[in-house]
């Protein structure tokens, strides 16, 4: 059970949040121009990294805001959280 520092509300229990998968996958602006392969890449293909991963979380039982998180999936250590639209604080 993580303790997550919501960028808006502060430290809250994991049970108030919902994970939303890999971050920084931008919805293509012109989907019709994409091949089936390119579209599938956006839609389904995931890095699914073992190690430091950038991902989306939603404070669904709190302020309902989405934000990004950097987390090491091999040991579940949260490295940082940051708001949508912000640059990741670590690489």
């Amino acid at each position, binding site marked *: *059970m*993580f303790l997550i520092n919501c960028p808006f509300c502060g430290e809250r229990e*994991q*049970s108030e949040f*919902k*994970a939303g*998968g*890999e971050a920084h996958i931008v919805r293509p602006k012109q989907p019709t121009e994409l091949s*089936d*392969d390119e*579209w*599938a*890449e956006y*839609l*389904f*293909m*995931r*890095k*699914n*990294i*073992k190690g430091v*991963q950038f*991902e989306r979380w939603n404070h669904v039982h709190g302020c309902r805001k989405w934000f990004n998180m950097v*987390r090491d*999936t*091999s*040991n*579940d250590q949260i490295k940082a959280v940051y708001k949508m639209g912000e640059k990741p604080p670590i690489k």
Partner: protein
Amino acid sequence: MKQLRDLSKQKIGVVAAGHSSVIANMAGLKLPLESKPLQALVSEPVKPIIDTVVMSNAVHAYVSQSDKGELVIGAGTDDYVSYSQKGSHDIVEGTLNAILELYPIFSRMRMLRQWGGIVDICPDASPIISKTSIKGLYFNCGWGTGGFKATPGSGDLFAHTIANDEPHKLNAAFNINRFVSGDLVDEHGAAAVAH
């Protein structure tokens, strides 16, 4: 350091379950998978009390009794990617909640051991038994929580696929290309828990 060998002329079949993406990434391949912690637990052993596997979609529970006497209870997966082989307590609590709704008599039974495994889940909750865009590289993955019962059959079909570089007609639908072409095999409702 062991000698690295050039395997490019050979065929490689990957059956790495939760670590499928890790292997695929080595070959520069992305898979439509997310690896998540799956929780399971056993009770202390007791004399035979239930003699079949019970699965309930209504309350999301799975329970059977091992030949040693433990109640073996499958819980769900967390909603985030993790390779830590742990998981959150909430999932275990939710599952036991369902178990006690089905079987209030188990309230005084005790959890002996809980553990988390990593499962590789496809967006349509169906497996992949398929060749890939890399010649000679094959994957049997994406089984989520369900693979253990299908292991012998899937192994057979996987061997067929590797040997012929073409799927058997039984696993044709489980081609990786379905995620590109849009022919998903929806199985989200197929198991009581963990999809």
